[in-house]
């Protein structure tokens, strides 16, 4: 029985459904937008996983209202089930909670869960979406998420969040930090006994809830429904479902997780024992022609390595073995993680696929048959087998795509073009994340920002029409002399802190400290319900200082400051004690000392908090103009998209023409014509409103986000001009390293992949009469000097090899590789290459191939693993896949004060939270300057940088100040020390003969305060008094 409410957006009778805190009432005045020409300033994001959340936040911060739809009862997607994430081992929940809470409580994001998009009609730019909202039987506006109903519910049901390994009540909340924190009744399990209604203190249970169809008018749509894990039953030879100790990687992830069935104790299903020998079987449901998934799911190698490392951390005597064909650690920092797994955690990697798994009678152990190093079949016993499942799309997502008229490729993923990776087949509907192609979290987040930029473009003119500004309650005045009333909140962070530090003892200790009037502990202080708890505590106990002892202020201070600001407290009356990253995580094996240190860190925080002062911030106008440095594909795309969003753009390019690395490429592996695309891109850039500065170099850079000043010198006339702009995007790209060794440069028949491509394109015919070609992979990559994988050379090698084969099918081509890393849909070309007779031979770095020259003939010798002997060939051509290194950026990095990795690529603020931002706000990175990338990936990242930049450019002004240096005029001896010491030349001696510091310009480093001979300068929030109090608290007590 369906009730359809046509008025859009609907407010019908008692139907006040408020997902999270966005009350529907506010929206009731919005008229339905029937006029197709006028774009609607709202976007519908379908799928609330990490991708959907990132896209929603970027859009909401750039002036667009967002409807975030998720068909599961809460947002968070598969990432909410993950324990830790590679390659940084951050816990998944800690990465997601800022985005979860952000999306859940954002004024301009309406989260609609347990709902599905039925259909989307109308023209692009002003769509009308029909959304089916399935009944929850619990009213969103009343439920506080307290869980009383679940406690009393007599009926038990299988908990799909824990992959069926534990039970839950019929009324449930998917996971503790769920957003929105609203329970719902699982009608399949519920017998309708009515107990939960009695148990509910908030009277939130409503058995009369019915399915509702809601019509919502939006401008554009982003599809981010994520992926579904491959069904392990489809590979019966591994015995999943038959042998209890064969489990899926997602089940293993749940077992490792603190909210998992065994509260992070690693126990195996058959007998609850701790497994010692664990086998990971890779490529289950990927690279498998038989079951139709002959693509690579890109993430399973890395999550297997991670799960092995985390298992080792939980249980030191565990011996993980990973059976694989190739380890595809192609991303940034992945190879270092893979090497560390081998070196520090002695994870064993066996290059062999598994034929079958049998159970050893009566022991629950498993016998795995595989080909060992010598190539002979052998069998080994394991206590536990984990199947690394690949990614597929779920049936419901495929059906939705059909309903919305979005084409899928033959694997059931969303069909996109190489040069427009974010656009689907239907105009106005964009895609990001795993639904576009299997990818990991960092790339999903980056692509989500990209999709946000793409979706915003069409409706840029409607920016700000539907969004409302954030009003804070009046700030309660806290006078300095007022007695400090401190509230201390100590976090368990699952077992991350609680597993090492005795949190209750620390809480007890905190409550004994002077001025501490309230001490409390929480499982996850960063979760939304705890934010409410903190706010209530502030009101209830009249707190005027708040301390959270949990993780690093670097990632979570902004969120907590926002929370106490919503409770009416000035956000600087807040202090964090890092008892996780700098205590429990680094003193894991010395729990007593870790607890003592945690107490001390809290004591230091309290000493500091007593002297915290309210600090006010001032509004500073934003220069609504962007500067893009680097004119390659990433730079041009970024500049174009910024212009498309209506902002003025300067594009600075060092060379005398645009194109960057694209100038050397002719065709993509999919067959796309690169030069045509490049010409069209350059054409569009030259005819747009973009100020193009060729032969130009950045020579100086200053200012603060929203207000930068950059000096650009343009050759040949050395014209110098100053550009005022609000944001900067670095897209300086990368280039192919000229290899040394293998006689490169000494013989014309030894060349690099780019040189080969150029030759094939220009003089393809003469290449046809080559008979023997050998390609060598990882030349200059994955060694001490350059530890990372250059990611694109495997694809390029396969591309060129296929082209050679097409020219002369009789040519025999060998590719000597260490790991073939053709991730994602590139795998299909690897399969095609093998099918067309291209021979792939694996070599170990210790015995890499040798190239010698006897007379005129080139001799290439290498160790053949399978034939077990040294082979020598006389190739006509040797092609080296050499490393991709960053184009010269050291001087630029120093000018803009942005960090670089050891290998010279730009270091982003955070691989997953802010993949395209720099630590200093307002500066972004895109393309190969961040790390080697394919063209389509560079384009996605360029869109992402634009979306992030718009979160600043779309604002009239920004808040600045707070932590700045202040001069006490009386004590100042006008000795000019501060004027000389300040790196930004901010202090001046004013007309009264006293030093003066402009709070807008001051960056808050505090050097002047530390050097002033008269001690007349102090840095707010880090005052001398505070620091001395903190140091004083170090000892004793």
């Amino acid at each position, binding site marked *: 029985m369906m009730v359809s409410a046509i008025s859009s957006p609907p407010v019908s009778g008692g139907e006040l459904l408020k997902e999270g805190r966005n009350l529907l009432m506010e929206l009731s005045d919005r008229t339905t937008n029937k006029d197709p020409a006028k774009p609607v300033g709202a976007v519908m994001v379908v799928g609330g996983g990490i991708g959907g959340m990132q896209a929603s936040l970027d859009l909401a911060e750039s002036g667009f209202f967002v409807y975030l739809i998720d068909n599961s009862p809460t947002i968070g997607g598969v990432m909410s089930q993950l324990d830790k994430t590679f390659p940084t081992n951050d816990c998944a929940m800690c990465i997601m909670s800022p985005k979860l809470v952000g999306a859940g409580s954002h004024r301009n994001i309406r989260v609609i869960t347990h709902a599905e998009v039925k259909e989307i009609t109308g023209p692009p730019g002003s769509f009308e979406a029909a959304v089916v909202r399935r009944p929850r039987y619990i009213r969103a506006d009343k439920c506080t998420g307290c869980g009383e109903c679940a406690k*009393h519910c*007599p*009926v*038990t049901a299988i908990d799909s969040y824990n992959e069926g*390994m*534990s*039970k839950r009540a019929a009324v449930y909340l998917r996971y503790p930090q769920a957003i929105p924190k609203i329970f719902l009744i699982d*009608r399949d399990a519920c*017998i*309708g*006994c*009515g*107990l939960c*209604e009695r148990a509910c203190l908030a009277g939130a249970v409503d*058995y009369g809830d019915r399915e509702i169809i809601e019509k919502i008018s939006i401008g554009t749509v982003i599809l981010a429904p994520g992926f579904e894990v491959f069904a392990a039953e489809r590979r019966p030879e591994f015995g999943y479902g038959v042998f*209890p100790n064969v489990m899926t990687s997602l089940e293993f992830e749940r077992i490792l997780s603190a909210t998992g*069935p*065994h*509260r992070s*104790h690693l*126990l195996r*299903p*058959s*007998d*609850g*024992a*701790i497994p*010692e020998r664990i086998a990971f079987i890779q490529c289950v449901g990927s690279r498998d022609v038989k079951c139709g998934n002959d693509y690579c799911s890109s993430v399973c190698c890395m999550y297997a390595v991670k799960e092995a490392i985390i298992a080792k951390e939980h249980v030191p*005597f565990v011996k993980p073995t990973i059976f694989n064909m190739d380890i595809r650690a192609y991303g940034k920092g992945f190879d270092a993680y893979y090497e560390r797994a081998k070196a520090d955690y002695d994870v064993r990697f066996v290059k062999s696929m598994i034929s079958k798994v049998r159970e050893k009678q009566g022991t629950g152990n498993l016998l795995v048959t595989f080909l060992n190093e010598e190539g002979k079949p052998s069998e080994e016993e394991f206590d536990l087998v984990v199947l690394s499942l690949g990614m597929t799309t779920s049936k419901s997502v495929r059906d939705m795509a059909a309903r919305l008229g979005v084409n899928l490729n033959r694997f059931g993923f969303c069909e996109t073009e190489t040069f427009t990776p974010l656009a689907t087949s239907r105009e106005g509907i964009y895609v990001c994340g795993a639904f576009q192609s299997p990818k990991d979290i960092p790339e999903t987040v980056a692509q989500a920002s990209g999709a946000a930029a793409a979706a915003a473009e069409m409706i840029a003119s409607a920016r700000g029409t539907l969004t409302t500004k954030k009003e804070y309650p009046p700030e309660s005045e806290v006078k300095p002399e007022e007695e400090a009333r401190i509230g201390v909140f100590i976090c368990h962070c699952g077992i991350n802190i609680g597993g090492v530090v005795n949190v209750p003892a620390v809480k007890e200790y905190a409550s004994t400290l002077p001025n501490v009037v309230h001490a409390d502990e929480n499982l996850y202080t960063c979760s939304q319900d705890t934010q409410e708890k903190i706010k209530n505590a502030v009101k209830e106990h009249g707190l005027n200082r708040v301390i959270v002892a949990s993780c690093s202020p670097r990632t979570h201070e902004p969120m907590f400051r926002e929370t106490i600001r919503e409770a009416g407290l000035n956000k600087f009356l807040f202090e964090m004690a890092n008892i996780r990253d700098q205590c429990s995580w680094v003193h894991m094996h010395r729990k007593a000392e870790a607890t003592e240190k945690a107490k001390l860190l809290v004591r230091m925080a309290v000493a500091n908090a007593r002297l915290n002062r309210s600090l006010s911030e001032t509004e500073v106008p934003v220069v609504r103009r962007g500067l893009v440095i680097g004119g390659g594909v990433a730079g041009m795309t970024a500049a174009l998209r910024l212009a498309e969003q209506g902002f003025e753009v300067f594009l600075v390019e060092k060379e005398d023409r645009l194109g960057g690395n694209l100038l050397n490429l002719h065709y993509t592996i999919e067959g796309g014509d690169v030069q045509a695309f490049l010409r069209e891109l350059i054409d569009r850039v030259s005819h747009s409103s973009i100020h193009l500065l060729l032969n130009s170099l950045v020579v100086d850079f200053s200012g603060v986000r929203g207000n930068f000043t950059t000096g650009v010198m343009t050759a040949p006339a050395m014209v110098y001009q100053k550009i005022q702009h609000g944001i900067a995007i670095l897209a300086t790209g990368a280039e192919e390293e000229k290899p040394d060794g293998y006689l490169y440069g000494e013989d014309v028949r030894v060349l690099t992949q780019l040189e080969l491509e150029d030759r094939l394109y220009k003089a393809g015919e003469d290449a046809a009469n080559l008979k023997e070609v050998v390609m060598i992979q990882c030349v200059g990559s994955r060694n001490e000097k350059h530890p990372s994988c250059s990611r694109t050379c495997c694809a390029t090698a396969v591309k060129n090899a296929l082209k050679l084969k097409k020219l002369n099918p009789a040519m025999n081509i060998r590719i000597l590789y260490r790991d073939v890393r053709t991730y994602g849909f590139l795998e299909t070309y690897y399969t095609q290459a093998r099918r067309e007779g291209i021979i792939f031979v694996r070599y170990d770095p210790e015995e890499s191939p040798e190239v010698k020259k006897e007379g005129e003939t080139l001799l290439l010798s290498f160790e053949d693993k399978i034939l077990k002997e040294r082979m020598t060939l006389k190739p006509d051509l040797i092609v080296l896949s050499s490393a991709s290194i960053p184009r010269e950026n050291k001087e630029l990095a120093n000018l803009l004060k942005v960090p670089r990795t050891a290998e010279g690529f730009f270091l982003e603020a955070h691989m997953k939270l802010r993949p395209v931002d720099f630590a200093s706000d307002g500066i972004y990175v895109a393309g190969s300057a961040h790390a080697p990338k394919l063209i389509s990936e560079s384009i996605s990242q360029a869109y992402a940088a634009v979306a992030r930049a718009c979160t600043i450019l779309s604002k009239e002004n920004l808040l600045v100040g707070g932590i700045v240096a202040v001069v006490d005029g009386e004590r100042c001896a006008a000795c000019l020390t501060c004027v000389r010491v300040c790196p930004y030349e901010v202090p001046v001696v004013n007309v009264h003969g006293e030093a003066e510091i402009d709070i807008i310009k001051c960056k808050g480093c505090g050097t002047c305060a530390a050097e002033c001979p008269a001690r007349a300068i102090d840095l707010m929030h880090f005052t001398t008094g505070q620091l001395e109090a903190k140091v004083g608290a170090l000892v004793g007590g």
Partner: protein
Amino acid sequence: MSFEPKILSFLCNWCAYAGADLAGISRFQYPPNTRVIRVMCSGRVDPAFVPRAFLAGFDGVMILGCHPGDCHYLSGNIQAERKITLLRKVLADEGIGEKRLLLDWVSAGEGQRFAELIRGFTEQIRSLGPFPKTEEIEGKLRAIRASLEGEKIRWMVGKAPELMEKENVYGERTDPERVREALETTLREELCKNRIMGFLEAGTMTAKEISDKLNLSLKETLPHLVSLVGEGRIGFDPSEESHYPRYVRSG
């Protein structure tokens, strides 16, 4: 001297108790082994009283109420029958003295019948011998009592009949079989969990030791351990770092 069984009998005030008095007035003789507790209605007898009685040392328990239809409170005896039948099933499953429990009806006028019932039941218990109080059976009794005193079972037992006959809160008829099956699953789980809590009273145990005591396969035991961990009633003994983690009662 031969075994003298100790029997506890609950007599409903309006019928059975009156019947007992009538037996007295008519000077019918019956063995002195029974101790009587008067209850206003047989429906008042909480199934948890029975395992408590056995634990307290009684060898047999009788519950005598009004004949169906005579109940002064209309449906008290029907409720009693439903609860005691469920209890009987639990005792049977656990293999503990379901024969030591009698539920029957005696009207106010049946003094004779009352005496015969007492005499018959006493002989029956005498032949069964004293209640076997091994440590294992005591553990089971305590678990049964805890489950029956638990909220989940009491609520389900109360609601089950209504759900079978009338519509549920959604205005739909639930298939009675599903209700019974849900009740039995919940009961089995509660019983296992309470028995485990009993085992862990003495100290820490591994999953294997627990499943042996429950004589269930490990695969059946683990979900209960998972639920108990989930409810925070048990945890893992941190001091123990062996291959087989030991569970411990928490808090």
